[in-house]
């Protein structure tokens, strides 16, 4: 275990690099969650489309993502995508993470869409709206709102998962930590430092999510 003063000095001196890496980690997480929301919404709608084949496609996607480790998905998508068309590293990593997050977000949306009272759809339709219009104007806005807290949690999970992008050469927090660690032959200190960065980020996000939850609970119904 490193001594406290050594740890503290290293913490200070590595601040610049880690803050850059924090930004990259956040960028990667935000982008992958945003794209994941699009994937998620798309597959959630397939799932509730009542068209068997679309349902199967959606189920298969969720099954594939839930059935394999994220690191396997990242490697396959990173090297696999490239065989077809080449996108910049950042986007390759973001897409791989988004593909993963998307399945979990699809399940979140499916849940919140189905949690909206069936009477809402009937009311919309009884006013002459088509299924699609009622979904878009009535159901989805309510489902989105309810999805905010679980999406916040998925964001926190996604933040931690983004550490695996280190293995496809993203210079995010974990990669910076292990690279510095192996350069300075001092893995432990840098690992402990990066743990602190993650803890602070997760703690902040957790606070935000629980504030969000409270706010929604108050204004609900």
């Amino acid at each position: 275990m490193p001594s406290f003063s050594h740890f503290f000095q290293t913490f200070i001196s590595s601040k610049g690099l880690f803050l850059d890496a924090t930004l990259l980690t956040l960028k990667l997480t935000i982008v992958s969650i945003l794209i994941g929301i699009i994937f998620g919404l798309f597959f959630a709608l397939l799932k509730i489309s009542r068209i068997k084949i679309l349902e199967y496609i959606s189920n298969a996607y969720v099954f594939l993502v839930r059935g394999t480790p994220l690191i396997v998905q990242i490697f396959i998508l990173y090297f696999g995508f490239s065989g077809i068309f080449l996108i910049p590293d950042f986007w390759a990593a973001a897409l791989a993470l988004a593909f993963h997050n998307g399945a979990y977000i699809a399940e979140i949306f499916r849940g919140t869409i189905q949690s909206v009272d069936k009477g809402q759809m009937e009311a919309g339709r009884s006013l002459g709206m088509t299924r699609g219009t009622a979904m878009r104007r009535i159901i989805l806005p309510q489902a989105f709102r309810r999805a905010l807290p679980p999406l916040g949690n998925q964001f926190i999970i996604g933040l931690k998962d983004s550490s695996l992008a280190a293995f496809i050469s993203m210079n995010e927090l974990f990669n910076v930590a292990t690279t510095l660690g192996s350069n300075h032959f001092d893995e432990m200190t840098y690992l402990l430092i990066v743990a602190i960065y993650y803890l602070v980020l997760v703690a902040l996000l957790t606070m935000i999510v629980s504030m969000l939850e409270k706010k929604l609970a108050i204004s609900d119904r």
Partner: protein
Amino acid sequence: MNSREMIKIENLNKSFGSLHVLKDIDLSVYESEVVCLVGSSGSGKSTLLRCLNFLEKKDGGSIFIRGEEISPDTHNINDVRQTVGMVFQHFNLFPHKTVLENIIEAPIIVKKIPKSEAVDEARELLQKVGLEDKADVYPSKLSGGQKQRVAIARSLAMKPDIMLFDEPTSALDPELVGEVLTTMKELADEGMTMVVVTHEMGFAREVADSIVFMNDGKILEKNCPEEFFDNPKEERTKEFLKTTALK
């Protein structure tokens, strides 16, 4: 009573799986007529109403609206629904929209009416149901009775020719039932054609032009209120009236 036939149902049948819920229903509703549908729980009243609004698909038989036979194959059901308004037991207001937005939503989105026009009409309707001061409030802030009056206004905003009510007061605290029934009575007095599923026998006796008694998926009796309450023909009707009197 005007003699123009607004709704005509012929030989309507509906099953859920092996459960035969509507059995050979025949019923006509004329312009400005107020029909109250009564009967014990599970007798098929809601299902009949929902078939009229095409929220349920019928299995057999025909439904004519203003003389024209309606079927999902030949008609755009969404257009038909615009002429048939529906009010639900649980109001089903849109919780993410204000009262005013609830009312203008369908006219703007479905009928493509300009927003300013829709707002003006909505305010008139709110005045009519006595809630002009609640326009910018969210449904969660309303009492049950107020919610139901907003739901009625929302339905009326589509200018339907016929209004269907499915137990519009049975989710309300007793002291709030009156305000909704008053609104419905005013609507009836203005000549709206209405089909009302209700357990409020007082309302039925006072407002209905005819009362339809359903039992086990069949229409057992249709009569004017005086005859129905004071001189029921069927044995089942008598029993039913006895149990409701007890409540």
